[in-house]
């Protein structure tokens, strides 16, 4: 069955790039522009993976992750954080909140696919 992935990013450029890459690799992709929208989308269907940016208006990625992990319908779903942070503290924050792994921007399409396959059963 086709795996469904939700990509969460306030930048349309990023959403477009992630979405395009994943769709080309055969995934079913939905998009959300911030954490709040993401929670709504998650409430409306079952996803196999969430890829989220950290810095977003309304609800940031860390809060989104905490919400997903505290909720019931997607608590066991892998979450990749997509971050430009190079210093690592945000990665740690993301991990502490319950992220499965991370992907550092800028990413290559191959790297994205590889990571998705690494965490997505």
């Amino acid at each position: 069955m086709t795996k469904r992935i939700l990509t969460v990013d306030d930048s349309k450029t990023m959403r477009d790039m992630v979405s395009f890459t994943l769709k080309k690799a055969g995934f079913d992709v939905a998009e959300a522009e911030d954490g709040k929208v993401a929670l709504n989308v998650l409430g409306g269907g079952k996803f196999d993976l969430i890829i989220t940016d950290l810095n977003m208006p309304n609800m940031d990625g860390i809060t989104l992750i905490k919400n997903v992990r505290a909720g019931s319908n997607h608590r066991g779903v892998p979450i990749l954080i997509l971050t430009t942070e190079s210093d690592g503290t945000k990665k740690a924050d993301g991990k502490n909140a319950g992220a499965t792994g991370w992907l550092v921007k800028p990413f290559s399409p191959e790297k994205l696919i590889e990571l998705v396959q690494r965490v997505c059963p």
Partner: protein
Amino acid sequence: MTTQNEGYPLEQFRKTYFEECAELLDALQANLDSLSNGSGDDDTLHAIFRSVHSIKGGAGAFGFDGLVAFSHVFESLLDAMREDKIPATPDVTQLLLRASDALGDIVNAARADRALPADFASDIRSAMQEVLLGASDEADATPIQNETVAAAVDVSGEQRYRIQFTPHSEMLQKANEPLLLVKQLRKLGGLTIEADVSKLPVLNALEPEAAYIGWTFVLETGAPQSAVHEVFEFVEDDCDLKIEMLGNSAGESAEPPPSAAPGATAAIATPANEPAATPAPTPTQSIRVDVDKVDRLVNLVGELVITQAMLTEQGTLLPVDQYPAMLHGIEALAQSARELQESVMAIRAQPVKSVFARMPRVVRDLAATLHKEVRIVTAGEMTEIDKTVIEQLNDPLTHMIRNALDHGIEGPDERAAAGKPRQGTIHLSAAQRSGRIVIEVSDDGRGLNREKVLAKAQDRGLVAPGASLTDEEIDNLIFLPAFSTADVVSNISGRGVGMDVVKRNVQALGGRISVQSRFGHGSKFTLSLPLTLAVVDGMVVSVGKETFILPLTAIIESLRPQPNDIHPVVGRGDVLALRGEYLPLTYLHRCFAIDTLVTDPCQGIVIIVQRDGAGTIGIVVDELLGQQQVVVKSLEANYDAVDGISGATILGNGRVALILDVTHLREIDDGSGGNLKPQRPAQPIEVQEDMTHAA
């Protein structure tokens, strides 16, 4: 970034990116403005950070190294600011504004594929790094580390590793699946696995989300050690992990080394020194200019307009058949002068947003103090108005908002009892209407209590007992000096500063203010302001040998009345019957004691004007000379304040003409017998008369 994949629509992404950049830069500018004028809140800095952060994120994807490098430093500074390591002092804010401008330039250069000079904005960058370094010794203002793919220093050939791996339950809660790790390892080479199930409890004690099993892997692989560590990259904090190298090499027990961030290869920009290939196709969107320079320009254009008016007037004396080119030139000059003037005024125009943006905070703070629930809804923030007007709009507007909160909107319980939502709403809107800016402040509070207003006005002798006033007139009594409707003098708006001060402020801007109210339903204050203070469209009129200017915006109509339209009323002078209404007449020649042959309105012209919140009157003049744009010169600055006169201008013939203040003209000649009152009278009877019969 390896984006050479077939069919990867990089161009399309680039386009999206630059569109997004434009929005981000706009938002950045707006939020920086709020930050610098103190109207920002906690979110402002976060929003500023996000804009720069997003620009940087995309820039990396497209390999705009210079952009990445600059935005990285910018972002670091903002990050330190939002963590309160660096305060937003005026100096820092100024630096942010400069950095924002430079960032815009760099984005534009990237969009145009244009190389910037190697030292472009390097001063700003250094300044930002300096601030960062000043804030903390270990501030990471270092440009992005050149993270070339590191750690590929392993011994070649097959290696044997023993990996002891015991997941913690956190690992499972973060959705890291051990089976997937095993699969990863298997991709690297031959793998033997041994499971340790000694900690596994009996079934009914087993918690489904806990971790009980550990594994020992022996891996034979030609892959570098870093590849082995990378498998456990996401889980190393959530498990017990020990990776040992077996075999010939010394038993090097390895704590997982910090693995290089995959794919991060953004290098410091070494801007190409090839000259700009094409002239800038996307010029910078804005420049910053000293206000003084603009003011000087406005003044010069004013002088030009005066000279042009003079030439036009002289031109009318020339015979058309002899100087056709000359006259044509004068006409063209008039056209250009007018366009030039409009363009210059447009430079000074700014959206009212800068003032409106401060109001939510005023509401929030005051609502908290008063224990009221209030929200503010703004509209028309992008309406543009002259900078001078905007600067002076803040105080009256703040006062009106505070007033609405303090006196207008009820407490939540009172509102609930009245069947209203507990939360009150204040609407603040701006719109351009027929050459003026109209700003409305309305609330859904208790409205004005007319009985109380009237009683208080009578109590203070502002209205004669028994005088009959229309609802509108009663409402507008609140603009009279020393009028306060607050039962309790609160420390919010009861500082002895009333709506009369607001009105005076607004009038000083050439504006008008009025109020409409429904008891129990709320009030609406309407402020009408001129687009600019520097120029008015005027009606030139003559009285005797004098010339006056009436602001066109105040004029409703002009007419020559019939004798039976004029009725003398005892104590009030003449009134003009017009379509069933009686308008008081003010004779301009009497106001300023001018000798004229035209003392009968039926021989002259009556100009019907709208006064601010005080109804309409007719002004009697000798004749209309024409319409003209006039440059307003302050009388106060050059001479002295004169009652009934709001300013002066220089006409085309070089003579000075006074601009009438129609609102206060009636106070000089109230028609009560033609006696001249050089001083603006403050007697109650004056106001009462005015209010009662104005409509």
